[in-house]
């Protein structure tokens, strides 16, 4: 298994939109590396004859019927919005295609 590099940490942090200081990055190189090392350990197991696990839940077909129930009132929905005009959540102007 390849080692985790600083570039990998930068890439993953970028995808998660996290800004990390250098010390944290260094720490994560080690931590992420040890997680991958643990995966290597799992990969070393002989799984011949073991049925692949496709999902964490062992139940299937859990549904609700197509019925409308009452929604939140708008005031409550917008209560946590950093910025609102009373109808919309307001966000910094989005340029189409960004």
């Amino acid at each position, binding site marked *: 298994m390849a080692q985790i590099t600083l570039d990998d940490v930068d890439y993953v942090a970028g995808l998660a939109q996290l800004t990390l200081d250098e010390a944290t990055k260094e720490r994560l190189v080690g931590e992420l590396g040890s997680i991958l090392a643990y995966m290597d350990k799992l990969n070393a197991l002989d799984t011949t004859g073991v049925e692949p696990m*496709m999902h964490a839940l062992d139940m299937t077909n859990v549904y609700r019927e197509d019925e409308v129930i009452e929604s939140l009132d708008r005031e409550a*929905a917008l209560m946590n919005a950093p910025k609102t005009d009373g109808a919309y*959540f307001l*966000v910094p102007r989005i340029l189409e295609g960004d």
Partner: protein
Amino acid sequence: MNYEAVIGMEVHVELNTRSKVFCGCSTNFHAPPNTNVCPVCLGMPGTLPVLNRQAVEFSVAVGLALDCSISRWSKMDRKNYFYPDLAKNYQISQYDLPLSFDGAINIIVGGETKRIGITRAHLEEDTARNTHTLGGGDSGVDFNRSGVPLLEIVSEPDIRSGAEAYAYLTALKQILQYLGVSDCNMEEGSLRAEANISIRPVGQEAFGVKTEVKNVASFSGTQKAIEYEIARQRQILENGGAITQETRGWDADRGITVSQRSKESAHDYRYFPEPDLAPIVVDTAWEEQIRAGLPELPQVRRARFEEAFGLSPYDAGVLTASREMADYFEAVVEAKAPPKQAANWIMGDVQALLTYRELDIADCPLAPVELAAMIGLIENGTISGKIAKDILPELMDTGKSAQDLIEEKGLVQISDADELVTVAREVIAANPGPAADYRAGKAKALGFLVGQLMKATKGKANPKLANEILARELGSSED
């Protein structure tokens, strides 16, 4: 060099369930912003999505109608990315195990039937709607659309021209509307089409670099955008340039595509199985139950109309364009109207009146039995086709029966020979010139005299009988 275009389509359709895909909020498009929202579709932490059974059944129905295989076992996945329309920072979608896969649609272009492969159709949630017209420096986000069930239908790159893409979209929309699973309203965004377009030298196996055209407001716009894009790419290649892989938007006013963003780095969505939603198992019993509920699909119905009613391929195509149109036609025929007459009236005068009134056939105020009754009155000689045409608008607007209306207006056709003989003699006496012409062998003069007779009877004369009687009177008065 000769190039051929390679085009694949991605179509997103909102399924018209009453409630959203993972919560009980209404899917009503016309609600004021952020009134159909709850902690689930607002992406609040700690909420639990529960899948809408109807959304799964609609998706399977579409899969079956597109001749797909249905996955016995499938699951939902998280697709991770950041955008203001996505509160959770992931979209619940399907990645490696879509609900249905490996199907096809038959399209007809230039009289030729062609099979366009369907790669997959998978279920996901729609995102919120952004609006940029509020003024100020902000964009507004409306979460009413967040969580509306969305089916993404991906075609194989089997399409070779803008015209084929148009035919594909039309055929797909027709099937979806027959199934009744979506409004397919492009203006309201319940159907959105994207085209992946590349060109390659004829005979070359490998694909060229593709561009993606999205945000086109109509099927004809999509066709034009594709045609433009093919020409643009050809010109670049012929000048020794290289195509940039990018998303391009269609500028309908200028008739060109415009670069929106280049895909420098491939998106890394880091899909993983959605742990909050149980896997979907569609066993054969469930699949067959859904199959049994499918309506007769457009192609089958069209073929049946040709065969059972003796309609031309064109007429059968027009009359099966929508399920409502086909239902209307069949209801008229069921009410004993001859199929060909029914077809002509519906495609002609009825459709024209509906278009003028901006009504859809589904909302046609003229009941099929009433149209059939009117056609019956023409068939049995009570009224002429001309009179029928004249009264049709009133028939449609008043809801009266044809019988009542013609009696009320005194429009019953004159099929009484004695009465017509009297009028015919008057017409001949009043028009000695044309009468003489006819007698001298100018058969055409008869038409003029028939016209005069119709005028004298205000169009009420039975035209066939009027012809016969005039011809006879012109002959007999010779001696």
